[in-house]
């Protein structure tokens, strides 16, 4: 029965698989929430350290409970809906954003055994497709708030995310080409077989991926949708309480998911040095490296301007990504025939 609970994905439908499904969902949610909580804590601590201040240090030892207190505060806050807002859309928009954010986690292979995650044969595509749905929630949230800053923020983020999805997907294509599969697990396996992480043959692709991912996640220096100095808070200016928490949550879940994707596609996923075990541990370290880079960028860079951002995607990133694709094809033909 235990086997049924753990491996519910490929088992016949019984009460044990029900339990597995339920447990899987709840556990993944709990783990994700925990990870997000401490990502936020880590962000504040790390950026604080970079800026010569302490960061949260009051709630719990070393401020470890700070994020939990923040979340609690958000949950018990009044759920304010502006009088002139479109009520139904205003309420539903954060959910539309959050559901795909959570759903993309299904294909991130934290471990080889795929506990609670799915081995989907088109995992990479699945990620791209699902994450594009979140934009609907952002645009709707901005529009429904009936606030000019929110509308501009919503439009900006939609434009930004749509245009950066193209270089993002193109940069992943090189990896897909080398591995001959859209399955993320398979991509890791190929790297394991070759004994070579994709960063090395795909260095150009990796750079494009990093930049496009930063923009896709709307993090500094591409955090235009919520550019505080211009648009106050962008599309979630009017949000408060747990609807605001939903937006924050999906933002950080995407951060974690993108980190997982980067680790899987370019950094060899769960494979450790010298064939060491502890797959999840290596996976966590690699994901954290990506997340750390995002924090670092945020502490260093000013914000780009919206037209520069778009121009950058179309003029530099996409041609580079296509060039990378060509290089990948050459590599596939003459080097990594695997």
């Amino acid at each position, binding site marked *: 029965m235990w086997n049924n609970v753990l491996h519910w994905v490929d088992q016949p439908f019984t009460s044990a698989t029900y339990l597995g499904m339920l447990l899987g969902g709840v556990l993944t949610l709990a783990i994700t929430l925990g990870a997000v909580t401490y990502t936020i804590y880590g962000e504040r601590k790390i950026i604080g350290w970079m*800026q010569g201040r302490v960061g949260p240090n009051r709630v719990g030892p070393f401020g470890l409970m700070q994020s939990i207190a923040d979340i609690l505060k958000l949950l018990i806050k009044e759920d304010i809906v502006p009088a002139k807002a479109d009520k139904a859309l205003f309420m539903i928009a954060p959910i539309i954003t959050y559901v795909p954010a959570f759903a993309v986690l299904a294909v991130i292979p934290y471990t080889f055994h795929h506990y609670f995650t799915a081995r989907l044969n088109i995992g990479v595509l699945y990620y791209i497709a699902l994450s594009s749905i979140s934009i609907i929630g952002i645009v709707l949230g901005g529009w429904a708030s009936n606030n*000019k800053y929110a509308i501009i923020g919503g439009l900006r983020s939609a434009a930004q995310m749509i245009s950066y999805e193209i270089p993002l997907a193109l940069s992943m294509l090189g990896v897909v080409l080398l591995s001959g599969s859209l399955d993320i697990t398979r991509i890791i396996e190929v790297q394991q077989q070759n004994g070579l992480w994709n960063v090395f043959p795909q260095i150009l692709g990796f750079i494009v991926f990093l930049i496009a991912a930063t923009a896709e996640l709307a993090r*500094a220096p591409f955090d235009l949708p919520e550019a505080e100095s211009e648009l*106050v808070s962008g599309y979630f200016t009017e949000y408060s309480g747990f609807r605001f928490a939903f937006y924050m949550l999906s933002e950080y879940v995407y951060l974690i998911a993108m980190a997982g994707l980067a680790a899987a596609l370019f950094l060899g996923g769960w494979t450790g040095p010298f064939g060491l075990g502890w797959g999840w541990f290596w996976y966590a370290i690699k994901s954290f490296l990506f997340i750390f880079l995002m924090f670092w960028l*945020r502490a260093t*860079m*000013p914000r780009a301007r*919206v037209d520069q951002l778009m121009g950058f995607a179309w003029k530099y990133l996409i041609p580079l990504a296509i060039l990378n694709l060509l290089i990948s094809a050459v590599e596939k033909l003459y080097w990594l025939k695997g």
Partner: protein
Amino acid sequence: MATTELRTEEMLLNVGPQHPSTHGVLRLVVKVDGEIIREATLVIGYLHRGTEKLAEDLQYTQIIPYTDRLDYLAAMINNHAIVNAVEQAMDLQVPERAEYLRVIVAELNRIASHLLFLGAYLLDLGAMSPFLYAFQERETITQMFNEISGARLTYNYMRVGGVKWDAPPGWIDKVRAYIPHFREKLKMYHNLVTGNEVFLGRVKGIGAYSQEKALGYGLSGINLRSTGFKWDIRRNKPYSIYDRFDFDIPVGKNGDCYDRYICHMMEMEESLKIVEKAVEQIQDGPVMGKAPKILRVPAGEYYASVEGAKGELGIYIVSDGKDKPYRFKLRRPSFINLQILPELMEGQNVANMIAILGAVDIVLGEVDA
């Protein structure tokens, strides 16, 4: 679709009075077409306290604390402006040591003000860290001011005829030690900000205006110097003891936001030079000269200005020979510099609007008086 014209709608966007990047209670009413600004109108006066009217009922010494509240980021220079104006009007002599102390605190205050510009401007452009770094250094200066004047923001330090307190023991050494320390920090800021590609992309060529325009608008300070016009009251109409120091006047080339930024950075270095020389030359002595207890400015009209942190800070006094001014007019550089904004903003997008506004470097306390 053949006949219907597709026109995007213009939207009236109210930026402020409460907005993260208006540096106080400035309100901008901008007509935007998408993100392009078609027309910008500035609305000020939210912080108007009637300083000029109040001053008419105050003795000259009593006005000094009011000037602290104008450009509250450079209150020392404001103090300097009024005591300088009254002293020039009354032909008063100020003891050497007091002059040196004045110059030291004024230049330190200029550095503090420029540091705040650096931090706040980068914050406007979306970079968080420089703000915190800048405040760290500004904190040291604030501490020093606290020691010398007993206040951290509104110092009320200078008096007509001298300064209120002598520097406490060891204070001058602190200033001396601060100079090399801050030079290092300046290098770090340059490393962090000046070479940053994203930053350069945001400020280069943005909000440029010509020399003639700047003169016509009566701009002063860095806003004028950024166009390449070498004009500094400290040099062109020397007051206090500025003629004893050797310092450069950094000027820009194109009058864009980048030039204004770089002028601020370079001016900090020049101020450091002045402070360095001043702490070298300062001698012991009295800090308060012979000034009458009740100051009576001889009847007449006087105008005297100092180089404030934001530009030419002038004081126009009409006196009827009494202990209170008949008319007390402040030439507030922020107020005058702000006027050019609507013209600069036209046709820019919202992000540039913030970059331009930030670079003009205003303090609303000074704009509204």
